[in-house]
């Protein structure tokens, strides 16, 4: 069902898709038959929502729980540290320190 699309479904139970080539903002995507426009650039191997995800809902990848949504995530949106968290230990990033550095 992801044929020709720049993402991969790793397990039928997953509610996220994995980006297999860079996606540009504005690119038209077909997610399980639903037409979605990419809201931003997606780097390789980042995740996008396969369906709308509610706050508190478990994020499932590889058919296994990988964390919990901290906000409402629409279908096709970027799923990452800004809208999900670990059920174990918090994730450490340098995002706030980076400024314009890549």
């Amino acid at each position, binding site marked *: 069902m992801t044929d020709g699309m720049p993402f*991969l479904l*790793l397990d039928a139970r997953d509610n996220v898709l*994995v*980006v*297999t*080539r860079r996606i540009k903002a504005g690119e038209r995507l077909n997610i399980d038959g639903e037409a979605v426009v990419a809201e931003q650039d997606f*780097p*390789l*191997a*980042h*995740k996008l929502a396969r369906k709308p995800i509610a706050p508190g809902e478990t*994020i499932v*990848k*590889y058919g*296994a*729980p*990988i*964390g919990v949504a901290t906000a409402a995530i629409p279908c096709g949106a970027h*799923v*990452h*540290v800004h809208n*999900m*968290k*670990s*059920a*174990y*230990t*918090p*994730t*450490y*990033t*340098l*995002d706030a320190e980076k400024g314009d550095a890549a």
Partner: protein
Amino acid sequence: MMQGFLRSDGRKGIRNVVAVGYLVECAHHVAREIALPMRDDDVHVIGFPGCYPNEYAQRMMEQLCTHPNVGAVLLVSLGCESFNKYGLERAVRASGRPVKTLTIQATGGTRASIAEGRAWVAEHRAALDVMPTVPMDVSELVIGTVCGGSDGTSGITGNPAAGRAFDRLIAAGAACIFEETGELIGCEHIMASRAINPALGEVIEASVAKAARYYATLGYGSFAAGNADGGLSTIEEKSMGAYAKSGSSPISGLIKPGDVPPKGGLYLLDVVPDGDVRFGFPNINDNAEIAELIACGAHAVYFVTGRGSVVGSAISPVIKICANPETYRRMADDMDVDAGRILEGRATLDQVGQEIFDLTIGLGQGQRTRSEDLGHQEFILTYKSFEPLGPACLPR
């Protein structure tokens, strides 16, 4: 067929390294200078920087100095440190290897110690260079795996491809070791169900619970900022990707650093110290894990990277498997295997798994890895403490 160097304990090495081991940081410079002119001739520096004694470090050094890839050992002591150099020298001598302890304070300082050390190493390097080899079977191999600089591609390409190579090795009778229980948090139940008996499954679950407790106390998971840049959002997500390195074989046992697998099969290496949190982070970087895998007898280590690591190791070759096709195009010179092809539809998991397996055999036929050719010989050893293995860890 591979060719190996036969040691007195029956194990065989795929390398014939002269190890120069410093026994406190104060002896590190002298050790490094001794090895420097011969660093391209399999003379590797290992050592322990601490001045306080530590049973774990003592055992690690003993296991590394009597590793099948090591043919001779020069120990470099300052003279006043607490490391038990006598016990280490005895253990190496008992293994049949040439060994000498050079004590800088007795030898007369830096210059005299470097001169004497170089002469000893050169003599034994020449002797090892004419040592005959014997045929070596795949079933005699011990292979470890680690991942570092992981990103969202690691768990889709490189790690499962390494897992396929593990499955092939284990089917041929080899012993394979995966590790870093702190990066298996979230996988404990799936992993326990692969144990060869329920008691081992409980031990595996307990080891991951210990890791989760340890990291919670320290306030950080085994998760670096670059992991998030690469699309990984949580430790559980990183864990699921890392777990794929273990392949699909049953888990035969749980071991701790320095324990050599008793027979072929798949083993989980528990790297998180036992007891109260005492000496800081379990493994302060990837090379700390690689050193522990080698201390368990690993002839070679698979290192899967997405962001792009460049490291190798002292003692055993490191095969670098690049999971991310963009990283591979930037850093191909550092990589042995281009697993990112899987993501772009240019190869299958089975093909890359086979390539990793073939390269492993090649290492026993004279092939060298990229990191060996580039002179990488990283090594680090820090303080830890472990209790001995319980009876459920290695079912018969």
